[in-house]
């Protein structure tokens, strides 16, 4: 029975993936892509990877979807959203089939699983959720660089602004009817999202959750509020925003340095202090991730003008 469920789910995922690639119209592909992320999150739930399911639901279905929707809207206004119909492309089909077959073959050629033995290490990690232990302790260097990557992408995105727009507020200037449905939604949602986001970070130490997932939920509700015109759009010149961007990575980096000075080495967490240290780092990271994601989605400063 559970095999039937998995096959049904995978059939839907594949159908949606095919529709994303093959269907005509960029907008249709974007909508399919959003549902794709959603179905994939269910797939991760089936695989028992709950933290991944959370990340996939929040990031792929949610934020990437909004990013693509907003981009499609902008492209349509620039009359660049149309595309030529898909023509049959035999070389591409051959390469794609070859890649898929090679991966399929690799699956059956895999030797018996050889996962590293974490039983001795996990109790020393300070947290009960093994995924959090890997992300924030065993492989903290990856996670630190990952937070830096988000920041680098944002600085890169800002470089795409026009020079004359540099001091403008970030993104489009959102407005909504005062007291209208959207504006009220923009007021009601943030408290709920805030509580849930904080819960995800706090719970992530022991069960499903984590800084990136919590940060994404916070970013989502902030975006709704921004779009509803409740929150004013930030400007690059505002120091508080830039400080919020670097706060999390900064705390992470400095705690790593503290590990090098006071403990066994860079990014080392003494078992006794590991739990509070991880929660502190995650809390700081969540703030920065949320701000970074919001700014990544709304885009560089824009004065709305056209290029000559």
């Amino acid at each position, binding site marked *: 029975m559970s095999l039937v469920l998995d096959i049904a789910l995978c059939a839907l995922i594949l*159908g949606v993936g095919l529709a994303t690639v093959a269907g005509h119209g960029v907008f*249709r592909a974007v*909508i399919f892509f959003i549902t794709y992320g959603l179905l994939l999150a269910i797939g991760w739930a089936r695989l028992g990877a709950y933290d991944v399911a959370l990340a996939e639901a929040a990031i792929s279905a949610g934020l990437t979807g909004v990013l693509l929707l*907003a981009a499609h*809207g902008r492209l349509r206004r620039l009359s660049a959203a149309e595309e030529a119909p898909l023509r049959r492309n035999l070389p591409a089909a051959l390469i794609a089939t070859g890649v898929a077959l090679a991966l399929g073959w690799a699956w059956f050629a895999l030797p018996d699983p050889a996962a590293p033995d974490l039983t001795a290490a996990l109790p020393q990690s300070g947290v009960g959720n093994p995924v959090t232990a890997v992300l924030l302790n065993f492989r903290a260097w990856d996670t630190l660089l990952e937070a830096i990557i988000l920041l680098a992408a944002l600085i890169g995105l800002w470089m795409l602004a026009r020079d004359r727009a540099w001091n403008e507020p970030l993104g489009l200037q959102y407005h909504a009817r005062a007291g209208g449905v959207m504006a009220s939604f923009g007021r009601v949602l943030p408290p709920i999202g805030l509580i849930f986001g904080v819960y995800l970070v706090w719970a992530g130490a022991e069960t499903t959750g984590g800084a990136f997932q919590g940060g994404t939920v916070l970013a989502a509700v902030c975006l709704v509020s921004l779009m509803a015109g409740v929150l004013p759009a930030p400007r690059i010149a505002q120091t508080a925003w830039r400080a919020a961007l670097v706060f999390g990575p900064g705390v992470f980096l400095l705690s790593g340095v503290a590990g090098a000075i006071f403990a066994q080495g860079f990014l080392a967490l003494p078992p006794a202090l590991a739990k509070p240290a991880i929660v502190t780092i995650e809390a700081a990271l969540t703030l920065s991730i949320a701000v970074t994601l919001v700014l990544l989605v709304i885009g560089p400063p824009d004065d709305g003008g056209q290029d000559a």
Partner: protein
Amino acid sequence: MTIWLHILAIALLASLGGALWRVWRGPSQADRMMAAQLIGTGGVAVLMVLAALQDWTLLAVAFALATLAALAAVGFVKSESPDGAGDPEEAPPATELRGTVQDRTRNG
């Protein structure tokens, strides 16, 4: 109970498949977005069922999905407005629009 929950999840997925047909068909962008909304709610329902079947922590995933689906819909409404930043409730006044309630084909 396990078997029923499996059947329930499969039936819900089948119902999502029907909504996917509407995403494919359109014809208007709003049709596609509405169908995506239904798929979002259906996904939340599937995750609730899976939570009962596998692990209750999946409710957190369902919650996140519900929040993010709302964001996607708001993002759609925004990107549909003329300047990409507006609110369909602002202008033009709703009275002008009465009687134009027929969908026209507009793929995007």
